[in-house]
């Protein structure tokens, strides 16, 4: 087995960064997320390969929170537009957990399938290599296995790092994985090591049949009950590795401007606010319900799998204690539909 010793991680990052923009889990000041190794500052940043996960998923690497689409020039009544095509350099995300790899899979489905290929997304995705980090020790709020994710074998990873005593087994999965491995071959050691067993999950949910049952639970009182403490902020949507909804807006100064897309949140009232004043999801409960139905019923109906990877971030960070597990449990336990 090829093994990467913990002490050589920084060398690997340096090497990979020669040919790609490499993102690694870090604590940067007060923030925890995937940051570019090029911007690493040892006085300020702390590599976090050894913790369960970081708060901000790597979503913005494939779907930037703000992305310019085209510039606009107006001259009297004349107007011209020019698509803004950002130059895409190869990127590597290293140390991604299975839940977040699956998150990228779902973004792929949204932006690359069903008769539509998003050029900008595809360009980034094609040049992305995913070096995942297998998870043997699920956290307090983890339930990825319940959502059909294997914590130790993320399907679309190009390489899987498997933590062992003193380092990581370097498990190459794809051609892209081979390519990055070639660059660091001399930093790996051939060694026989024993893998850790997967510890059992502390949280279990049974999602089977939930999507079907939800069809009859649109008017269920649970929505009122569970949404009551919700503050309708955007934490859950912005920290979710799968929430992909976006807005398209314009910025202009006089006759110049550009149109951009940016993440949006279904928890915001403005999300469905129509120009004439009508809003089909005016109430917090309605927005709350739509968020969970999208994840647990609507997305599965369209794409076949639930839009939740069991990463637990929304549970950990919700100021009001809203818990998707509890919602799934409640649906599961419901006698019949409505």
């Amino acid at each position, binding site marked *: 087995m090829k093994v990467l010793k913990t002490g050589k991680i920084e060398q690997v990052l340096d090497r990979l960064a020669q040919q790609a923009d490499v993102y690694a889990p870090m604590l940067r000041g007060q923030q925890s997320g995937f940051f570019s190794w090029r911007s690493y500052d040892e006085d300020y940043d702390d590599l976090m390969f050894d913790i369960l996960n*970081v708060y901000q998923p790597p979503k913005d690497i494939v779907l930037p929170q703000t992305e310019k689409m085209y510039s606009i020039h107006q001259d009297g009544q004349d107007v011209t537009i020019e698509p803004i095509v950002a130059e895409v350099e190869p990127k590597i995300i290293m140390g991604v957990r299975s839940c977040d790899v699956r998150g990228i899979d779902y973004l792929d489905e949204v932006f690359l399938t069903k008769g539509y290929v998003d050029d900008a997304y595809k360009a980034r995705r094609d040049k992305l290599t995913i070096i995942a980090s297998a998870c043997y020790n699920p956290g307090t709020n983890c339930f990825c296995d319940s959502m059909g994710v294997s914590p130790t074998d993320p399907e679309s990873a190009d390489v899987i790092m498997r933590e062992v005593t003193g380092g990581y087994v370097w498990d190459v999965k794809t051609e892209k994985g081979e390519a990055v491995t070639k660059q660091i071959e001399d930093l790996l050691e051939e060694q026989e090591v024993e893998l850790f067993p997967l510890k059992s999950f502390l949280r279990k949910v049974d999602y089977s049949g939930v999507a079907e049952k939800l069809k009859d639970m649109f008017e269920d009182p649970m929505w009122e009950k569970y949404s009551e403490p919700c503050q309708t902020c955007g934490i859950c949507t912005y920290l979710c590795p799968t929430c992909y909804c976006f807005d398209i807006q314009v*910025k202009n100064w006089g006759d110049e401007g550009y149109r951009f897309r940016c993440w949006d949140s279904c928890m915001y009232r403005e999300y469905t606010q129509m120009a004439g004043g009508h809003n089909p999801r005016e109430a917090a409960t309605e927005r709350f319900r739509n968020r969970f139905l999208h994840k647990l019923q609507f997305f599965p109906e369209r794409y076949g799998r639930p839009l939740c990877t069991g990463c637990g971030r929304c549970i950990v960070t919700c100021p009001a204690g809203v818990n998707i597990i509890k919602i799934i449990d409640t649906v599961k336990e419901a006698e019949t539909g409505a």
Partner: protein
Amino acid sequence: MNYTKEIREIATRLLENEQVDMVMAWEKGDLEYQTVPFIARTVDEVSRIVCDEYSIHNLSNSLLRFRDGQEKIAIVVKGCDSRGVVRLLEDNQFPRERLYIIGVACPGVKDPLLAMKQNSGFEKVQDQDEGLASKCRYCLQPNPVIYDELVGEEQPLAELQERFARIEEIEQMSADERYQFFEDMISTCIRCYACRQVCVACNCRTCIFDETRPQWVGRETKIGDNMMYHLIRASHMAGRCVECGECERVCPVNIPLMLINRKLIKDVNGFFGPYEAGMEYVEGRKPPLSVYKENDPDDFL
């Protein structure tokens, strides 16, 4: 702190006598350290109410959801939360008559979010007893400033952190350094608006950031729009922030928002003070920057 028994008794009495239509308090979440907002509307629901060492969530903001109704509402408030109620009363967002305020003398509380985070595997430091919430270490008023009924013995002021120490350090920076400091701090904002949503002083019906005709602040998460967001919010907080610390507590990217609020508190106090927002409710009294007088100094114009 554990006033669960007392609060349940009061809630039962108020609901039984039909003195109120609902009681705003807390209930336990899924984990032992989770205590989350809860509204009891029937006597049966009272048994879910708790008031324990994790009852940190400032409920006063939740009153806003009922501001257009007629319901009579009992609300449980700690010292800081009660200042939030004063905020709403001063801002004419809620009539005093519709409220039955159950005050609890607060010895300081713990932060379930912090406990959750330390217990989640997302932090390097794990499973430590996190002690009192950071906002409690700056608490000026552990005892409710307005109430109809008080639970618990009046609490002495805790030994305070130097309230403005960090502010003074930042004031000593050069303008460039200071700008850089705030730019670094604000650039990480993801614009989830959690700070606004939990803030009791953010009680505008249509927030300027949601306004689309015209759109005052762009939706890009880059420094310009982020700065606009935080600067506008800050200027709206001047003289109005009751220092409950909820904004900073809920921020998912840990922006030290109370630095901004404390700077404003310090300045408002310096210019117009002595003044502490929401320390007592006097009908008709307004925060210094919420009134206009003919003889206001205007030499800066």
